[in-house]
């Protein structure tokens, strides 16, 4: 079998490769398409990965949700959830829609928002909330902030930022204006758009409107147990801090407030159910004068309610679907023990990815689409190899005749060309992989350089929230793309090789 005896093939492959311009061009084309595919995949994949990680820091892994009406006895549910070995932490939250007005500014900015009532301590355990707080002292500047202009780096402001950090972590604290402790709100950093306020390095300047310390007025519409609207409720809170999750949709719409505050506003706090409609009974003093009214008879209690419980799994390795199933099981058990809990089908138990399926799906589709387009472009390299080989084989018809006259078989000659194609593939793809590695690991430097010299800023940190382009070079992806590059070159060489194998040796020798 000649296929396993490739000694003349390997010698000729080496010589052909180093002695002609065409194969070098082919290798260069392969290199570029491999590098392009890999860079795209890595950057888009890195972007998606960051997004998913950010998502996890927003709602943990799994959410039990019953919008609007919510469910009671959640403390018991959380206890049961946290007792499970797969579950790291669980936290109650309320989601409501409302209006937010920024006081103390001439514009009196007002915008709609999602108001989220949270218990900061357990919310942090589930979502890593504390890390998203924006106004806190930092020691290392953001990657592009070469001149250390970020106000959070300023030692003179350290104490102030320690205060805002504490306010954000407790959602409660001292208000200078009111001279007393009061509830605090934490706004998504883009709620009152900061686009114009970001520096080129991506940090937010603190001089124009520094929100912490200002007041906001929140307006919500509570609904009653039957789903009807009640009187709107307004409440003034101080902005304790802002948070940045890196996802614009979230940062531009979300406001965190203390859970109990929102429960009160939405009338979701614990309430006694009284018998109404009976005759009014007064209480009299010894002299017979009425001094008060008998309280109506309490016939029951509606417990405080929340609209969702967020759950975080232990570690990173429990598959989301399994965790989701486990949470459903626990909820079912909980529901059978609680008189206030709705059945499991009356609420949603969703993973973060389910909740944000459209967003993640869109980015996944985009990645797939770009890869597909580049894949088609890469097909060009297959045809390039094919075309180059076709012409090279015509050029080397004589060589084929000689090899056949010396006793090489048809498949042996074919293997020479396939091997040659593979060699071009190996050289081109590995160089492409190396090029991609260099570009990916320096993509921000390259991007900065493009910005500085050509004025091109594709990834504008004033628009995007990841201040840096993801730089993760993934070895598995690299191996897949490099292997695909090699295989496509082999495929490109296959047809010309077949032609060479079928060539009549006598005609090849007579060929002028």
């Amino acid at each position: 079998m000649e296929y396993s005896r490739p000694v003349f093939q390997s010698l000729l492959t080496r010589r052909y490769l180093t002695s002609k311009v065409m194969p070098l061009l082919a290798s260069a084309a392969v290199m570029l398409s491999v590098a392009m595919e890999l860079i795209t995949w890595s950057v888009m994949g890195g972007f998606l990965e960051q997004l998913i990680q950010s998502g996890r820091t927003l709602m943990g892994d799994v959410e039990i949700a019953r919008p609007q009406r919510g469910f009671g006895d959640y403390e018991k549910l959380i206890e049961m959830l946290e007792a499970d070995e797969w579950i790291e932490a669980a936290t109650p939250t309320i989601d409501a829609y409302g209006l937010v007005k920024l006081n103390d500014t001439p514009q009196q900015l007002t915008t709609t928002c999602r108001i989220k009532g949270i218990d900061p301590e357990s919310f942090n355990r589930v979502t890593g909330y504390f890390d998203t707080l924006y106004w806190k002292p930092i020691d290392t500047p953001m990657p592009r902030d070469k001149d250390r202009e970020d106000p959070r780096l300023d030692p003179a402001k350290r104490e102030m930022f320690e205060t805002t950090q504490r306010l954000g972590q407790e959602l409660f604290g001292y208000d200078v204006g009111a001279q007393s402790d009061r509830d605090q709100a934490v706004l998504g950093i883009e709620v009152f758009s900061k686009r114009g306020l970001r520096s080129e390095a991506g940090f937010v300047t603190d001089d124009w409107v520094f929100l912490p310390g200002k007041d906001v007025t929140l307006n919500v519409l509570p609904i009653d147990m039957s789903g009807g609207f009640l009187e709107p409720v307004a409440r003034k809170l101080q902005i304790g801090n802002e948070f940045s999750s890196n996802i614009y949709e979230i940062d531009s719409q979300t406001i965190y407030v203390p859970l109990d505050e929102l429960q009160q506003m939405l009338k979701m706090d614990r309430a006694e159910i009284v018998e109404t409609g009976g005759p009014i009974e007064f209480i009299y003093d010894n002299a017979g004068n009425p001094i008060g009214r008998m309280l109506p008879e309490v016939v029951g209690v509606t417990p405080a309610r929340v609209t969702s419980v967020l759950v975080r799994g232990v570690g990173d390795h429990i598959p989301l679907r399994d965790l989701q199933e486990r949470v459903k099981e626990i909820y079912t058990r909980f529901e059978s023990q609680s008189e206030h809990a709705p059945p499991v089908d009356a609420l949603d138990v969703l993973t973060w990815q389910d909740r944000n399926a459209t967003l993640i799906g869109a980015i996944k589709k985009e990645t797939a689409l770009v890869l597909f387009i580049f894949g088609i472009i890469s097909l060009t390299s297959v045809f390039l190899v094919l075309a180059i080989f076709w012409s090279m084989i015509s050029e080397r018809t004589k060589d084929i005749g000689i090899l056949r006259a010396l006793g090489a078989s048809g498949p042996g000659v074919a293997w020479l060309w396939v091997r040659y194609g593979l060699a071009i593939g190996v050289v081109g793809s590995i160089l492409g992989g190396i090029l991609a590695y260099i570009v990916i690991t320096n993509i921000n430097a390259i991007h900065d350089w493009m910005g500085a010299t050509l004025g091109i800023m594709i990834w504008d940190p004033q628009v995007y929230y990841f201040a840096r382009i993801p730089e993760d070079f993934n070895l598995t992806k690299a191996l897949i793309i490099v292997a695909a590059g090699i295989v496509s070159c082999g495929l490109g060489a296959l047809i010309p090789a077949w032609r060479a194998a079928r060539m009549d040796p006598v005609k090849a020798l007579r060929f002028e």
Partner: protein
Amino acid sequence: MSAIEVENLHKTYKLGKVEVPVLRGVSLDIASGEWLAILGASGSGKSTLLHLMGGLDRPDAKSGGRIAYDGRALGDLSANDRNQFRRDHVGFVFQFYHLVPELTVLENTLLGAMIRLGRLGYLREAGKLRDSARELLGKAGLSHRLGHKPAQLSGGERQRVAIARALINDPPVLLADEPTGNLDQKTGAELLDVFETMRGKTERTIVMVTHDPKVAQRADRVVEMADGLIRQTTPGGSVGV
């Protein structure tokens, strides 16, 4: 060492619908160790005959005749066996040298051995093969040219490399198609000296095709070919010039 029988060989080319008979019943008996020259005008079918003898091509399917080496008929061999037969039994030398331009003199010489032995076999014997390639090239007067590319050699030198390449596997049969056809007289004569040297003690059978009676003279025996047939057989050295 090999005796060759050629019996009533027919070869017809088809050019569209026209049939061109090139060999029309060639018969030859070549003794083992004999140097035979086939003399004929251009277009008389010499190359065609040589290709058939080397198993590169096949005679007509219908009553195309028979070629046998020591009684073993080529027609009975499968395609693979014919490749193997070429590797092991036959060395080819062509008018236009047909060296691979990218390979050095030494590599061109070793090409036949690489094809015959495959990777493992070749690597196992690489040292020995290099020695015998050097020896062959030495006999051809090319010791100082081992690392040169064909483009750096003269025609005569190239043809000497081609001879060394044909002989690297020490084949019992050497088929030479106008080996001096592209060389001037003096160089041609020198080349035939190399043939003489290379014939060696192994009693190699040589079939050499030429249109030049002077060249044919160097052989032991000369047959003349015309119109696809062997016309006349003369002992070497007695052909009129």
